[in-house]
């Protein structure tokens, strides 16, 4: 199946994403060093100002910070150190949780984010596209108008605000579902059925807030694509040949879905951003929550580490989407511009 053209396409995409990733990590490296007022040295002086609390720990953190960012060395040495460490998986040491390693702190929270984000994104994508296609197929009926109007509004609701509303309605008012965390406080994670149910009950509201508000955007985009496709030559020709409506709709759905796949790749970043903030609203123990704590305590090594990993995962997901696209669209598989 995998033709030469497809491999070439995938290699090109990989190369591009790799270059992009190097650029992004370079930006992560450069930012604290070029922003006016040098935030790092400011952090240092902040630390020494509050040093009366625990001078020992503060000094250790200070050393760590100096070490972490290689301050005092020429910038290119710092850069090489940063990159080589990152490649070895060494993302540095946290300041807040000194002396724990950043990577060790991130790894346990990542699964929570993945478990929330991936299913929610996929479900929203599938539901939104189905809804949009149905609306386009019934263009100018009340179904279409209803879907379009609702989608236009719903797509503009930030995930986290919908989360707030859900917490208030289903958690506070109706008391149906828990309002925060990934599982009840005091419960020790275990592989039991009751724990699973507990996790599921905590999962519903954050999951739904992402699904509902992400769906609208896909529905709008898909509706537009299907409307375009319905007017295309192959649809008109198939009709005059007596190809069944059901089959034609399948054609249209399939061809409209292709650009939506690219759309998914492009919006992964903003979906991730929204999901992270949703975690904060739900006190959900994922990466977003960890990032929030790092931000409030100015734990720069941790912030950097989280970003190096998050950006990498966005690009990885991007590549996966590219791969799927190449498998589905023969024009790429066989090597013709779409």
């Amino acid at each position: 199946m995998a033709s030469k053209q497809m491999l070439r396409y995938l290699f090109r995409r990989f190369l591009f994403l790799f270059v992009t990733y190097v650029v992004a990590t370079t930006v992560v490296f450069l930012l604290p060093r070029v922003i006016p007022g040098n935030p790092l040295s400011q952090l240092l002086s902040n630390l020494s100002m509050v040093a009366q609390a625990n001078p020992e720990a503060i000094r250790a953190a200070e050393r760590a910070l100096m070490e972490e960012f290689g301050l005092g060395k020429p910038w290119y040495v710092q850069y090489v150190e940063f990159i080589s460490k990152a490649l070895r998986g060494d993302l540095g040491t946290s300041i807040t949780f000194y002396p724990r390693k950043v990577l060790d702190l991130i790894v346990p929270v990542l699964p929570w984010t993945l478990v929330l984000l991936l299913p929610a994104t996929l479900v929203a994508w599938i539901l939104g596209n189905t809804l949009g296609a149905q609306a386009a197929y019934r263009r100018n009926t009340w179904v279409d108008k209803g879907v379009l109007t609702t989608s236009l509004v719903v797509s503009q609701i930030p995930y986290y605000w919908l989360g707030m509303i859900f917490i208030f309605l289903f958690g506070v008012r109706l008391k149906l579902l828990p309002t925060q965390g990934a599982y009840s406080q005091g419960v020790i994670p275990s592989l039991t059925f009751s724990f699973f149910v507990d996790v599921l009950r905590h999962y519903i509201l954050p999951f739904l807030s992402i699904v509902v508000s992400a769906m609208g955007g896909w529905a709008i985009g898909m509706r537009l694509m299907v409307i375009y496709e319905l007017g295309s030559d192959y649809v008109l020709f198939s009709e005059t040949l007596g190809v069944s409506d059901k089959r034609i709709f399948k054609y249209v759905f399939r061809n409209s879905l292709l650009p939506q796949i690219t759309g998914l790749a492009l919006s992964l970043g903003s979906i991730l951003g929204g999901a992270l903030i949703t975690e904060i609203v739900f006190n959900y123990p994922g990466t977003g929550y960890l990032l929030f704590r790092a931000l409030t305590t100015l734990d720069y090594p941790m912030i950097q580490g989280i970003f190096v990993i998050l950006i990498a995962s966005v690009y990885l997901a991007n590549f996966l989407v590219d791969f799927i696209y190449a498998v589905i669209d023969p024009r790429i598989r066989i090597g013709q511009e779409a």
Partner: protein
Amino acid sequence: MVEPLLKVEGVRAYYKLGRVFVRAVDGVSFEVNEGEVLGVVGESGCGKSTLSNVLMMNLRKPLVLVEGRVLFKMGNGFLEISSLGREEVKKRLWGKEMAVIPQSAMNALMPTIKVRKYVEHLAESHNIPKEEILEKIRIRFQEVGLDPVWLERYPFEFSGGMRQRAVIAIATLLNPQLLIADEPTSALDVVNQKIFLKVLMQMKKRGIVKSIVFITHDIATLRQMADRMVVMYAGKVVEVSPLEEMLRKPLHPYTKGLLDSVLTPEPEVKDRGITTIPGAPPNLIDPPTGCRFHPRCTYAMKVCREKEPALVEVEKGRKVACFLFTEEIA
């Protein structure tokens, strides 16, 4: 003798745009006979493409049938397809009894599946066994000069001329009696145009299709294959004549004007010179009164402005809608 395959009787088909109507096909009557190639000619905006949709009863809003009947020969009698709904006509006739070769054959095939798959879907829609139809398409592909291995390819791998031939092969797969070709050659270079015409004529010669309606603005192309001509102007049929007679002696001034504006690389054309019909085709929302051609006609008389000429047989097999002929007779 000649039997009609399709009859169009007093058809008016308008586009409804808000409160106004575009009278694209406005009181048109003619027949398509069995075994003939009927050429429909006219300038852009005269209603020829709308006519192809009317022949199929492929009416979608804003296009509506206002008046008239379209009859298609089924068995021994005629089926009034204009009284059926679009879905009904589609189910009973499209693909099987009548098929279209569209203007843009370039993109007419479903782009993201293999041609074989598409043909299988076509079979499925018509409840025909897959094996049977695959066997048929292999033969049909060879007949149009395509190697059957191309069935395993995607449409975008085909060149323009090949796509056009694949479209003919697929459109004629269920041996429709009537084939409607709507400006099928306009996107092709001349060499491929000729190949296309050859393939099309072979389809008829082999009896795969009975009759062909060929819609175009290019009289020189029609001249190669048409038996009779229908000349359309501003939503009306102005002349129906056998091709040779029309070339020898065009009746309607518009037909004459069209013929005299044809430019082909021939010494006769150079000697004849090229003429222009003054003015431009009218707006079909508010067409001129009387004969619609009168503002551009050098022979226009008073009656042309006031009364609408009917399409009347003036010689055997020749009809014209012009007072230059009918007034004398009357």
